[in-house]
């Protein structure tokens, strides 16, 4: 009897938790879309510590090239 009570209690709790997650997922996805948190800029190379975005890297490359030209 004790095992059956435990089984029912555990199944009930699992259903409650799973339904919380199921309700929570669309709500959270909606909130993220509404808040417009998604970064629109080119993604940076996250594998390199303190890396710059593609645009910034291009700008730095141009600046280095200009500096070389000026030295000549």
């Amino acid at each position: 009897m004790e095992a059956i009570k435990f089984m029912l209690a555990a199944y009930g709790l699992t259903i409650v938790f799973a339904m919380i997650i199921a309700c929570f997922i669309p709500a959270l996805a909606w909130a993220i879309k509404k808040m417009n948190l998604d970064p629109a800029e080119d993604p940076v190379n996250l594998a390199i510590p303190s890396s710059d975005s593609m645009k910034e890297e291009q700008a730095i490359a141009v600046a280095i090239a200009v500096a070389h030209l000026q030295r000549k």
Partner: protein
Amino acid sequence: MINLESLKEIFQGITSLLEVSPQLALARLGLIILGFVLIFLGRKGVLEALIMIPMGLGMATVNAAVMFFDPLKLHGGVGTLFVEPQAGATPDAIQNAADLMMILQIDWLQPIYTFTFSNGLIACFVFMGIGSMLDIGFILARPFTSMILALFAELGSFLTIPIATWFGFTIKEAAAIAIVGGADGPMVLFTSLKLAPHLFVPIAVVAYLYLGLTYGGYPYLIKLMVPKRLRSIPMEAPKNQKTFTSFEKMVVATVMCVLLSFLLPVAAPLIFSLFFGIVVRESGIKAFQDFIGGPLLYGSTMFLGMMLGILCDANTIMDPKILPLLLLGCLALLFSGIGGLLGGYFMYFVSGGKVNPVVGIAGVSCVPTTAKVAQKVVSKDNPHAVIMPAALGANISGVITTAIIAGIFCSLLAKYVG
């Protein structure tokens, strides 16, 4: 001079076979043969090669290499130089720290067992790797359908509990055995370590053996329970289906990880590992993803299979509790399969015939095997029917519900005595 006694000393594997009880000797020979069979079936692709080949070789070798060596005096004078699973497992299985130090130094795989296996670390590593393969976009597309299918497919994780207590197991032991119905290897390791460490080895071995075998049996269960007319139903994508960016998926996974850990702190190591893999996948840190999904996952799986094989020595397997365990593990997975298909029928009726009932079997959570089984069976009856996206949603939800169940079992039974 070489006499009979010195020959006995040299060939201890043979001598120990002759000097133990006939049952134990037969069990050793049987397990050596089973090891060969597992390697063969793994190589043929009938069973999961990644686990079965290292497990089969470990099992065959450990039962061959038995010698007169038993430093903790637990096995009647014989043992192996591979691992002592009981070292430190219970307070009476070890005298003091010096005993454990000696075992760590002399048993070849003991450091791997003690520092990664018996503390659940390897389960967490495997879970990280699994997480790095999961696309939670499939759940985000159909959250309710996926979760309901997964809940039905957990039937075995619950129904097995009263049956196991009827066999004489305590509730803690019964819960550790029943989680086999969740069909998730790392979860079985974690829960059995928390609730029944003395049964950890046989439960883990039974679970992994059945996980390999059952997927061969599920197609027959599907054909038995679902007629061809229903198996052929094509599933269309939901109307106005939203798409989710990596960033959105990452934020959802991060918040879910924190929420689930807050609700079920006992299972937080597993929850964190799973969602860490998902977050790394969606974050775009390719170097981390390559490491977790490659060397970490495959290295952990290799050692997991090898350790499971090494732990299958006849002394451990001859435990009288093993036979009911074999039956209960099989029942748990059978109930979960039946529950999953009942869930499929439930969604079929609720959706007005739009959901293929076969998709329910994918709620049994071994990713992505059951989803592949469901698609394969459906493709044979209707090559144009695609159920994979819905199946993967149920599959990933199955992993999450099994983590929830592990947390609930461990939390409810933490202070339970008996």
